[in-house]
């Protein structure tokens, strides 16, 4: 009885803490304005836009948010910011957008944690005349937002798929280290790689697949288990470069054969891995370009009501490798290091 009582008390305290932390979050996202209006004209003084990002633990999202914010403040706008706490955390993003609607923002730049969970709240915002553009990922249907500025992830996946087919092993034993495939970019890269390589899901050349969290430790752990079952794996597709780095550690420790790794991202640490021969090729994305394109679209809308082109506006991807394949455009790691994102 005593245990039951104290458990109930703990549960109540737990609910109170969760409620309190939600309130704090709401408060936090309502007051991140830059306050810098010096560089803008009079018309831009009252403009506030919202930026809703994914979890900042990933430097890609942090770079994207920082660049979008910088582009917005350079126009003299105020910025409200909010971020998902963990991958897939759409609930925090929904709350943040509701607060932004109440606050009267003119536009919202959203990096959606889930393609469908945010559709209703985005409609609410658009019904109030707020321009909503997504960056990095799309909503489903894609026209649920006014426009999307993102890497065409399928095209990025296709680049590394084609490269792997041309330069990779002649007798491929393929492993695929994915992230949750309900995530738009993750599915796009996966499908693109297969398309570029010229195979489909379930092809016998794919000897193993595993889900990772897109981190070094989970990449290593899953690669180890796959190698243990299939020691002949010689070509590995990875969802991003941290996963590739982890997989490379597992390969170094366990595999006797040379293994080719391909990835997507173009972070400076990932390009360094290309230079060091750890990753064979990666498709570089351009988060700063996504942010600038989104802010330019908002500026045009605020100036004269011109809406951006609906659908996906590709911010581009470039194949980075030191072993170029004939007929496939690419840049080497030196160019990559000069154009990469994140800390060098």
């Amino acid at each position, binding site marked *: 009885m005593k*245990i039951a009582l104290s458990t109930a*008390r*703990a549960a109540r*305290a*737990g609910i109170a*803490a969760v409620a309190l*932390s939600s309130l704090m979050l709401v408060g936090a996202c309502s007051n991140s304005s830059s306050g810098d209006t010096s560089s803008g004209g009079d018309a831009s003084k009252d403009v506030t836009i919202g930026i809703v990002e994914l979890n*900042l*633990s*990933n*430097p890609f999202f*942090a770079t994207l948010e920082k660049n979008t914010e910088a582009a917005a403040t350079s126009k003299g706008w105020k910025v409200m910011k909010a971020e998902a706490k*963990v991958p897939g955390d759409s609930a925090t993003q929904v709350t943040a957008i509701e607060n932004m609607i109440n606050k009267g923002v003119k536009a919202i730049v959203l990096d959606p944690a889930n393609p469908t969970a945010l559709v209703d709240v985005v409609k609410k915002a658009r019904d109030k005349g707020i321009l909503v553009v997504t960056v990095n990922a799309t909503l489903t249907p894609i026209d649920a937002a006014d426009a999307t500025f993102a890497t065409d992830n399928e095209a990025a996946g296709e680049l590394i798929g084609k490269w792997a087919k041309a330069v990779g092993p002649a007798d491929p034993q393929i492993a695929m280290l994915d992230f949750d495939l309900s995530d738009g970019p993750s599915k796009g890269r996966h499908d693109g790689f297969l398309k570029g390589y010229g195979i489909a899901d379930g092809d016998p050349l794919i000897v*193993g697949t*595993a*889900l990772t*969290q897109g*981190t*070094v*430790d989970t990449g*290593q*752990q*899953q690669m*180890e*288990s*796959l190698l*243990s*079952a299939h020691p002949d794996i010689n070509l590995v597709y990875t969802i991003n470069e*941290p996963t590739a*780095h*982890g997989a490379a*550690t597992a390969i170094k420790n*366990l595999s006797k054969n040379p293994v080719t790794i391909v990835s997507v991202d173009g972070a400076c*640490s990932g390009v360094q891995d290309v230079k060091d021969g750890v990753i064979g090729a990666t498709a570089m994305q351009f988060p700063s370009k996504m942010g600038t394109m989104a802010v330019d679209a908002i500026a045009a809308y605020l100036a004269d009501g011109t809406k951006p082109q609906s659908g996906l506006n590709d911010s581009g991807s470039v194949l980075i490798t030191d072993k170029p394949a004939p007929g496939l455009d690419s840049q080497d790691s030196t160019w990559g290091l000069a154009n990469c994102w*994140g*800390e060098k």
Partner: protein
Amino acid sequence: MIQPAVSGAAVAALESDEGDRRSGWRQLLTHQITGPLAALVVAIVIFSVTTDTFLSAGNWSLIAQQSVVVGTLALGQTLIILTAGIDLANGAIMVLGSVVIGKVALEGSPLLALLLGLLVCVAVGALNGALVSAGGLPPFIVTLGVLTAVTAGARLFTQSQSYPISNGLLTVLGDGPTVGGFTITYGVMLWVGLTVVLGYALSQTAWGTRVYAVGDNPGAASLSGIKVKRILFGVYIVAAVVYAFAAWQALGRTPTADPSGYSTSNLDSITAVVIGGTSLFGGRGGVYGTLVGALIVVVLQNGLTQAGIDSLYQQVATGVLVVVAVGIDRIVRRRQSR
């Protein structure tokens, strides 16, 4: 309560041979480690039959290596759960420790980096301990708050960047001798060594007896003269030292100090403790069960991946096992209280 259910020698001496045998069986069946061990054996048999590679020496050395970080974290978690507490922040404390070690080692001496990592882990553990013992706050809430703050703190400290580690001392726990295709890393040795030391401390010292007493009934423990707050505080400190070892283990396993790594290791460690037969209500269980629990979690992941089964089903299997383990604990407690 401290020792497994049926006490032994005096009763057995008075019983007939048959009764003696029955008592032995009962003792074996009700021993807290029997259930987890049986589950481990069943999993091993299933995977050995369904895959060709599962039972190889190489794969078993891999399973041991894949278990060390969560297994070591789970040792600290066991101590805290034995006091009817819970530590949601242990993975975050370990990650903070590892990034402190990684960043300091960039320019400073690796030994200094390790000591600073230990210091940081102990400082956060002391904060948890003080809030729970002196502050009288519920461990769930305290460690939830510390988890959030420390996770963000590690990212702020590193600006969300990860640091590759190349120093020998920092990654030495990933090395080790190979015997017959089975590599025993120093990290695995450390994990087993820590288990033995903590197992001895819990079962053979006055401190261990007090830890169980505090977890079983803090009121009664206090009346019998045990300084409950001091024991609680001490448990959080010892657990934090264990987490610092886990941070070193993590650098040996994955030579990168990554602030976003091991994000579910707190829950994995709780899973290992619970599957290992330690009661979430406190006062019952031990570190050997936790060692088996950690192995079960990793065997499931490793075996199901090798069998080509979707990762999501691995999580379903682990989740079902946790609920079953807690259910069994509940039944055993009810029987014992009759």
